[in-house]
């Protein structure tokens, strides 16, 4: 389905095919009784990143952008650094300040937990087995979820971010992780490190 989407003067401009329908089929039981029908169709959703665009653009450019609450009146969250990126501080709801955490990640990213799976849901695009890792960073109050592309995960192991900046999808899949010390030649195709 060829299509394109732009934003022009604050509105979506949609071109091409966003949906199609196929002929349905009846569903019958062993005795031939009609039980139901199929409802086949394909469709494309659009989705706004809004204030999070900076994170996804950053990853495509090889940078890990988080946010920090700089509201001195915030009773709980002042100076808290968030990764995942939060547009607003969850405590005072003031706009946060973007901070580049690429170096923090290169220096301190550590596996908090992990899992390995051979099974996925429909629409998965990652190679199996998938290794989820949850990553802690020095000075960051939250724990990012990501995926490890080389080596085996273990709690406490150091990892570094790598970025699919050569041909980005502009999704979270552009950000992956490898064990600290992985050489440039060992990196998966299409990914580069900022270290």
């Amino acid at each position, binding site marked *: 389905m060829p299509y394109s989407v732009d934003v022009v003067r604050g509105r979506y401009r949609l071109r091409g095919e966003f949906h199609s329908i196929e002929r349905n089929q009846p569903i019958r039981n062993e005795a031939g009784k009609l039980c139901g029908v199929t*409802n086949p169709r394909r469709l494309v959703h659009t989705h706004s990143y809004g204030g999070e665009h900076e994170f996804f653009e950053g990853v495509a450019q090889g940078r890990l952008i988080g946010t920090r609450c700089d509201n001195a009146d915030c009773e709980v969250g002042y100076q808290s650094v968030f990764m995942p990126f939060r547009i607003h501080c*969850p405590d005072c709801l003031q706009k946060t300040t973007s901070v580049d955490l690429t170096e923090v990640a290169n220096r301190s990213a550590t596996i*908090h937990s992990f*899992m390995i799976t051979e*099974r*996925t849901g*429909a629409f998965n695009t990652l190679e199996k087995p*998938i290794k989820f890792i949850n990553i802690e960073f020095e000075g960051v109050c939250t724990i990012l979820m990501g*995926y490890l592309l080389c080596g085996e995960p273990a709690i406490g192991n150091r990892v570094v971010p790598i970025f699919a900046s050569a041909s980005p999808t502009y999704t*979270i899949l552009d950000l992956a992780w490898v064990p600290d010390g992985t050489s440039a030649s060992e990196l998966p195709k299409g990914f580069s490190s900022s270290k």
Partner: protein
Amino acid sequence: MITFSEQQLKTPKYMRDVYLVTGGNSEFRRAFPEKRTEELCIEALQEACDYINTTPQELKKHIHSCYYGHFADHFGDQLLGEAVIHDRLGLDPLGNVGIKTGGATGGSTLWEASKAVASGYSDCVLAMGWERMDEVPTDEGNNYIASAADKDWETPLGHIYTGYYAVMAQRYWQIFGKEEDSFRRTMAEIAVKNRGYACHNPFAQAPLKITVDDVIASPVVAFPLRALDCCLMSVGAACAILADEETAYALTDTPQLIYVAAGSHTLRVADRRNMEIPLLPNETKDQYKDLGKEFPGGDRYPGFTGFLAARMSAYYGYRMAGVVDPTRDLDLVELHDAFTISDIQTYEDIGIRPYGLGRTYVESGDCYHTNPNTKAPGKLPANLSGGLIGCMHAVGATGIMQTIECMYHLHGRHGEIHGDERRWERFGKQKPADWEDLQVEGANRALAISHAGVGSHVTATIVVNPDHRLDK
């Protein structure tokens, strides 16, 4: 370190007592290719009517507003599915509303329904929940379920929800399980127990006699979680009728008090920040000061090892119902065993065991109908229905099914409902020759936990025999 205000921690208060009058479940299966959802809903409502010897026609005269739990429009491919069911139940022109809180949808439906009665808006309400998970292939179903994670940050990472629990299982096993094989076997024991109890439940989808070794040898879904550690995908419906005192006693001689409380936490586990543990009535201020020494890493609360939402649902719910020590004050529980690991985590969140010691609830035998170690009745039997692992997880119905199962015990009618040969036949099943009545003798108080997301929403529903209430 985040904190909560006094106002936020206030004990919820109903303006008047709310009673559970009756309820019913449909049969639960992986698929019902020859039944529409409304047929299952009517089956559940008919069960509720039969339970108090009335008819839908008579019961409907009392109903004033309706609360419908239906988690995923995607699965049914029908927006406003609640309106379809409401119409087919013939309940127009009553006000109705759909409730969606993921896996906690059933519990949240009871939460909303109970508030309608407690406030005086309605004297009698219908809480009905269902799910239709059989109209897409399983991998598409997994994608839909994973769509309940953050679509930008988490869902694309495999589209597999079990993965989000598996990272918790890994962390919990290493911190509180101390990486012991015995802890893994304790997790597996939950799957064995609950599937075994499902063998005595004609409504159940997946009765199975298995061993701990079977669980540990079952295929990996998301390491360390294996297929038999995981709950079912189901189709089915459940309903409850709640009322004020006058209406309740007009409909039955034995209504039960019902209290429902709710808690929440971040949808993304990633966003959990550190805090002090909110204490339940059976815990003390200094109780957890050495938790990090005893279990290195365990002092990061709730981290990946606890569910704040479950803790808060119990925090509010116990205080509403006057429960101090759940093991002492309750007679049975139906917990949200979506995964064996989350079941253990929940024992701690709701105060059955202190943080770090959840496994001892299983290992002591307290969670069994009959303690396998002592052969005496279990102190606080859990998931005698078979739970989500053995009975069903038709998401919107689950929390209601659990509550209805508790109701049967409090009425002393568990055996009557589960042992009825006609019901087994109607469902096309053979009643097992070794069928057992799992009635908890003398049960007066019970708790059902309904849980969503990776702990994004949790409700605690407490059902109490009015002669044994603790709040007055």
